[in-house]
């Protein structure tokens, strides 16, 4: 049953997703893309759409994947998608909701303890590795193309985008819009 699988995956994502949206991506990739519920391309598209719409990427991706995954599995009616969206969105916030509501006092009291400090000292470099792995996972033939020309164009777009984000104050939304316009002019004609 696809819904039970989605619930189980999103519980794991909500429970082990430390370090923000980008760090969650590799977990989502593993739980959602690897089983084949959505394709690599779709996954990248979801990240792009999440960037261009308001709200946290974790919510956005859960809502979109929850809608699309049941359809890919053969539950074709939009109502099945709506149900999937609702389930995924609720489940992805549920673990942290309960943790924040019930353990925040405990954590607040012990935040100077060796255990809590140690955990975060250890998680910090791991989170950077998680984000890096998401970037590596996205650098594939589905996103960059398989023909030489396509790959060269993709690499140029990626390098320009990276430079824009790192060295200017241009908002990521405009980087995505600019690359979309570039894509239109390069590939449409």
């Amino acid at each position: 049953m696809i819904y039970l699988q989605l619930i189980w995956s999103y519980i794991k994502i909500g429970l082990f997703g430390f370090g923000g949206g980008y760090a969650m991506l590799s977990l989502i990739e593993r739980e959602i893309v690897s089983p084949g519920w959505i394709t690599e391309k779709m996954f990248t598209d979801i990240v792009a759409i999440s960037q261009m719409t308001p709200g946290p990427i974790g919510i956005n991706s859960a809502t979109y994947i929850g809608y699309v995954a049941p359809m890919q599995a053969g539950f074709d009616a939009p109502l099945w998608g709506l149900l999937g969206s609702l389930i995924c969105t609720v489940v992805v916030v549920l673990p942290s909701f309960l943790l924040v509501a019930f353990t925040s006092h405990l954590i607040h009291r012990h935040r100077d303890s060796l255990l809590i400090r140690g955990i975060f000292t250890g998680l910090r470099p791991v989170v950077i590795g998680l984000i890096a792995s998401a970037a590596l996972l996205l650098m594939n033939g589905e996103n960059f193309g398989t023909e030489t020309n396509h790959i060269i164009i993709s690499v140029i777009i990626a390098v320009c985008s990276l430079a824009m984000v790192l060295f200017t104050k241009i908002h990521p939304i405009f980087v995505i819009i600019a690359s979309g316009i570039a894509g239109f002019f390069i590939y449409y004609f």
Partner: protein
Amino acid sequence: MEDSKKSVKTSAERITANSGAGRGILRKLFISFLRIGAFTFGGGWAMITLIEREVVESRRWISREEFLDLLAVAQSLPGILAVNISVAVGDRLRGMRGAVAAASGTILPSFTIILLIAVFLTPDLIQNNRVVASIFAGIRPAVTALIVAPVLTSARSAKIGWKTVWIPVVVAALIWSDIPYVSNPILFVVLGAFGGWLWLHRKEKHLRNKQLEKEDKEADV
């Protein structure tokens, strides 16, 4: 310990004073977070800034120190940061019901917008409509770049040096490697947490031993 108790008490007093009848605050919480959820692109830290401005400066629901305390807790728990902080703020103000009001306010705008997009911008359309397909072909490599950027900036802010750089490199390589079990991100979250605790434990013990040695020497003299 006593200090924190006192601050909780005073904040509770201030809340009841501020909220008047106190019933309307659930609605106000919901609307405040709904606005924030609807107008922040990208989530995360952009959202935190807006939330702080709203609950500390314009609404005066909690003090800045309290907000920073809540933020520290929200950050240390898994899940979506913006949701965590809204749950923490709502919980502080009105308990469980406040937490639900604030969290649903944060979630609702992105849920609605994405749902609309999912209905109209189907994977089929992205694949087969030539205009949309070419636009997304340009966007995909840019998305990769957008994820590389925070790797570099957060490595700087986390003070990753030559001694620790192996950790993110090994983690990223193993997750990417696709080896069964070993490539599971959950494994590295657990290992990192446990390893960090072990490392700090040994470091503190080492420091303590040194301190004791020093004291012993001084006593001998």
